[in-house]
């Protein structure tokens, strides 16, 4: 009889333990397929701490990497087909409008006390970084993604070269050009330029962000709503000044091949020591101090003096994702204070949490964080968040590239680009009564 009692008690204890474990790891055994962008430093860093998530939750996270240039196409085709190929998506804010119909709002999970404790999670920490951090991924009061990484382009410069030339970091675009002119040098006297004053992000996919940064800096503006767009929004004296300025930079102080470069190649040029300054995103900030790949360790500084796009990315859940609660669990984990800090330390220096960007210990390691904070609060802005933005972006980039390569005049380029942009919006129906 006593044996039976022991047996029954034992079974009950085991069952309770099992239930306890199940309650602790409710999604154990599930596999999450997560779409990341190849080589994006924050994604790479997050991947390195994912084993912790797997250990904590009993879930398996499978990362599907896609190159930046192809990720939108690949994901959109899958989302339209409703294949349920992904449980979590890395969404770039500039494509948010295209992704939006396929994203599941997170509010349902955030309002469930079983899944989320808002006070403990400290959502205000995101908003404290920049007012845009949460608003960019919100529509009609609903949040469609937790901010995964946030960056703003800064002016990166070689401290040693500026010092040698007796210059201080530029504070406006005139100084930027004048400094670049002085820093463009043939160091060995063989008649070829060895160090260029700047590098441009002149590739079709990178040019417009940089151009708009200069356009805003010269006093240009972009309407808040597409309905207000005019043929003269870009085609005006400021637009012309910006195109001419961009061409002047390309012709006189930038490597000729930078018409095919975007942020990776521009960063690589700085690492190789062939450029003295550059407009570039903060996500590559760590590259310049990497002794394995950089020849300019400790020689690079950063400041900010131009408005620029807020390069915010989020982790979101697709509507056709079959494991939404488990996906939310991953997003919540990945964007928690502790993991954002760990990811930042592991080499993803684009935290979207103010507490991490303000961390004195991290600021010592990532010396550009003060400039990033300043840029995020003072200069960061968004463009028109509409599905047609990619087409407008290309319409501008194609014509401005033609100017740089000497095919057409700045006036002609602005006229064609502005008309094309207007017609894209007109065809999409934004100007109907």
């Amino acid at each position: 009889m006593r044996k039976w009692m022991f047996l029954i008690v034992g079974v009950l204890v085991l069952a309770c333990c099992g239930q306890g474990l199940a309650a602790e790891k409710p999604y154990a055994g599930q596999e999450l397929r997560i779409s990341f962008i190849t080589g994006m430093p924050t994604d790479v860093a997050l991947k390195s701490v994912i084993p912790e998530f797997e250990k904590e939750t009993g879930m398996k996270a499978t990362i599907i990497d896609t190159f930046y240039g192809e990720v939108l196409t690949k994901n959109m085709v899958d989302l339209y087909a409703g294949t349920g190929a992904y449980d979590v998506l890395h969404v770039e804010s500039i494509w948010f409008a295209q992704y939006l119909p396929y994203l599941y709002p997170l509010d349902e999970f955030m309002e469930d006390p079983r899944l989320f404790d808002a006070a403990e999670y400290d959502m205000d920490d995101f908003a404290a970084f920049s007012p845009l951090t949460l608003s960019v991924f919100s529509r009609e009061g609903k949040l469609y993604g937790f901010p995964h990484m946030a960056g703003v382009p800064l002016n990166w410069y070689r401290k040693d070269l500026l010092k040698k030339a007796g210059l201080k970091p530029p504070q406006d675009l005139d100084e930027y050009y004048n400094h670049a002119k002085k820093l463009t040098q043939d160091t060995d006297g063989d008649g070829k330029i060895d160090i260029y004053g700047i590098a441009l992000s002149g590739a079709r996919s990178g040019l417009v962000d940089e151009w708009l940064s200069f356009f805003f800096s010269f006093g240009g503006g972009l309407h808040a709503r597409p309905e207000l767009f005019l043929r003269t929004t870009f085609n005006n004296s400021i637009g012309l000044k910006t195109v001419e300025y961009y061409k002047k930079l390309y012709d006189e102080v930038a490597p000729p091949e930078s018409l095919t470069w975007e942020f990776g190649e521009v960063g690589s040029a700085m690492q190789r020591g062939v450029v003295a300054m550059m407009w570039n995103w903060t996500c590559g900030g760590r590259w310049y101090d990497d002794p394995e790949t950089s020849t300019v360790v400790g020689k690079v500084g950063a400041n900010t003096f131009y408005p620029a796009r807020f390069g915010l990315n989020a982790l979101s859940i697709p509507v056709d994702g079959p494991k939404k609660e488990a996906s939310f669990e991953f997003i919540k984990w990945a964007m928690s204070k502790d993991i954002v800090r760990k990811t930042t330390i592991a080499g993803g220096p684009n935290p979207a949490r103010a507490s991490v960007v303000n961390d004195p210990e991290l600021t010592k390691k990532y010396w550009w964080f003060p400039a990033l904070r300043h840029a995020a609060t003072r200069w960061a802005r968004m463009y028109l968040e509409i599905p047609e933005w990619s087409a407008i972006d290309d319409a501008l980039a194609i014509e401005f590239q033609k100017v740089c390569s000497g095919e057409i005049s700045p006036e002609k380029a602005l006229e064609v680009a502005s008309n094309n942009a207007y017609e894209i919006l007109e065809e999409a129906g934004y100007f109907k009564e």
Partner: protein
Amino acid sequence: MSCRAILTGSYEMMKMQNKVDITPYLLISAAAAILFVLTIYPLIYSLALSFHKFSIARPGVAWRFVGVKNYAKVFTDPVFWRIILNTLIFSCSTVGLQFAIGFGLALLFSREVQIRGEGFLRTALILPMMVPPILVGLIWLFMYKKDFGIVNNILWMLNVGPVTWLSKPFIAFLAIIAAETWEWTPFMFLLLLAGLRSLPSDIYESSEVDGASTWQIFRYVTLPLLKPIIAVALIIRFMDAFRIFDMIFQLTGGGPGVATETISLYIYRNGFRYFDMGFAAALSYIALIIIVIFTNVYIKVLRRAT
């Protein structure tokens, strides 16, 4: 045989003749179903799409019938004509170069006298064809780099350059032609070599007996006999070059401006970057029509010549 027997017999025969044998239809039904699902249905679907306005970035908005508006937009779009010109120049020049180099190499390797290390050379020559086009783009991208690319290194040794290969419209176009020629000359070489090796030797022997010179043999024997193979090689390569995508996508992305953009990149840009699916479908149909017309004209000209 009685009259009735004859009548019954002919009736049985008629019955047999009228009875449809469904076996052949059953045998091809699987292939027909696959053909319908994978080829005919998508063709009909995309044709229908080309008369509509639809974007996968706005899945909530249904297809809107726009008639021939997408086609009209294609023909009034100045970029389209520039891109068609790019595509034709690219296709004709790359196929021409591949043919000239490939044929030369095939003639060299088809000689009876063996070249030393011929086996190794032949394998080395066909290697580029084995590399996926996207990797060809990547390889040439590094080869064209101004600071550390091998092309500029060679030019530097010759005291020329450096050249920024992908930033100037005309040079960038030459750069993509060179990469495509490098990749697909082996195809031309292999096909023409196989053709040359299959030609009957007795005609050559009798030509030599008749005192024909090497040029005369080439002009009046080799070329006419090889014409069908040349035609197939040129058509296959032209169709392939016309729809080039991967290599240019990797190498220049169509830039600077639209200097190296071809029709496939333009379709991709409209369909999968702007998600203007109706316009992209109309572009695809026009590209299809152009290639069908071009191929048919070519075949007719060739038939007339032979």
